[in-house]
């Protein structure tokens, strides 16, 4: 496929890795803040191509993973109602709530449907006027324009049986939360390419300056990631802290302005809870007052519900790059993709699931055997 295959060239990847090794003189810790990049890094073994001085930390870059427990509970409560058709992206269905997940609701005859796009949910609402159709609007800035469009069109069409359960989060406040934590290890960031496709990258400039960290807007294919790491290491070695753009073929400095305009029309910035991290001020999107009638939390009376998270799961530390997945005592035994304790093991893009799936499990066993001997 054009614009995909050529960025997976093995020889070019080795050349980038050699170039990174050539300019690296001391240890550096770089964090990617996108689950798609985490998945690529582990799947293609990019971290294993790098010199041992470079540590890649996998940040809170998966909206599925950071959706708070209480919101999953709200989703299952709404989905279990007989008048509701609950529509969601597929990866939310297995995320464990306090007691059940959306798949279990579906198994117990709840009408839970996987959709590819929020506009599919809108269509289901048009076709089922006797039902309440709820769309689980999760995502980062990348998904916000699509979700905003569904709500905007629902209002324009006067659709009274459509609403959204919103769990939208924003990347820059999460980066700031990581950088301002006392145990922060991250020295440079790969910013998420598709988030910046929508938002541009000007909002990262004050962060790079305030915390003196390089931030490189990076794509998703192996060569994109290797080039992003190269650009980040070069800045670190030269003592620079700038925002650079590796993903030039898709990202413009100001982002996608028409998309930002519609997002701003429908959503406003609100505080959000992040699973494993806690509440981060001004870190998410909620519906504007003018669109409040489409808020599923209000419509189904679940807004006030709260829930506490499991204490054994260390996903919060994994998401902040303080710990690696295999440093968790539950990893690979009490916690697996089939029986996840926390969300980083559930989603394909979660660091724990990626480590488990691509054999990083064996490394932990090997390390444990070594330390025992």
């Amino acid at each position: 496929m054009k614009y995909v295959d050529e960025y997976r060239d093995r020889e070019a990847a080795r050349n980038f890795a050699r170039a990174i090794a050539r300019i690296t003189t001391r240890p550096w810790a770089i964090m990617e803040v996108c689950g798609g990049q985490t998945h690529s890094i582990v799947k293609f073994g990019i971290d294993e191509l790098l010199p041992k001085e470079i540590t890649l930390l996998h940040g809170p870059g998966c909206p599925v993973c950071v959706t708070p427990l209480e919101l999953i509970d709200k989703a299952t409560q709404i989905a279990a109602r007989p008048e509701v058709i609950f529509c969601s992206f597929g990866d939310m269905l297995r995320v464990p709530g306090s007691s059940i997940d959306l798949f279990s609701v579906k198994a117990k005859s709840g009408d839970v449907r996987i959709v590819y796009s929020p506009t599919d949910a809108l269509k289901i609402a048009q076709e089922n006027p006797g039902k309440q159709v709820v769309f689980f609007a999760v995502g980062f800035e990348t998904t916000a324009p699509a979700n905003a469009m569904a709500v905007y069109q629902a209002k324009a069409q006067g659709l009274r049986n459509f609403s959204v359960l919103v769990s939208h989060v924003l990347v820059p406040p999460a980066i700031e939360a990581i950088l301002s934590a006392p145990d922060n290890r991250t020295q440079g960031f790969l910013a998420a390419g598709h988030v910046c496709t929508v938002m541009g990258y000007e909002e990262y400039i004050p962060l790079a300056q305030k915390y003196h960290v390089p931030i490189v807007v990076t794509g998703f294919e192996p060569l994109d990631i290797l080039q992003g790491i190269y650009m980040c290491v070069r800045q670190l070695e030269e003592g620079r802290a700038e925002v650079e753009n590796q993903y030039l073929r898709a990202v413009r400095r100001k982002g996608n302005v028409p998309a930002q305009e519609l997002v701003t029309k429908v959503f406003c910035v609100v505080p959000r809870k992040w699973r494993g991290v806690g509440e981060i001020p001004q870190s998410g999107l909620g519906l504007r007052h003018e669109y409040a009638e489409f808020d599923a939390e209000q419509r189904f009376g679940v807004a006030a519900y709260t829930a506490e998270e499991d204490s054994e799961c260390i996903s919060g530390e994994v998401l902040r790059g303080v710990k690696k997945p295999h440093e968790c005592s539950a990893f690979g035994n009490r916690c697996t993709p089939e029986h996840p304790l926390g969300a980083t093991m559930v989603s394909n893009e979660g660091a724990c699931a990626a480590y488990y799936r691509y054999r990083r499990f064996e490394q932990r066993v090997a390390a444990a055997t070594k330390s025992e001997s």
Partner: protein
Amino acid sequence: MCLAVPGKILSITGEDVLRSGSVSFGGINKQVNLAYVPEAKVGDYVIVHVGFAISIVDEAEAKQTFEYLKQMGDLEELGPAS
């Protein structure tokens, strides 16, 4: 979750928020909302996320990764950095 895939626009219909088009992803065609890329034309490659085109692929910039690599190779041939 933020997965987005490049595809080629085959045809365009509708206007404003309902502007959409048929987009080919390596031979598989899907209907995609094009409201956020008003300047996109038939034949352009767009980056598509959950049924919405969010950017037009810049063909010239798409080559820069390989040029960057070539430049690094040229530097290497000049000898180690001093």
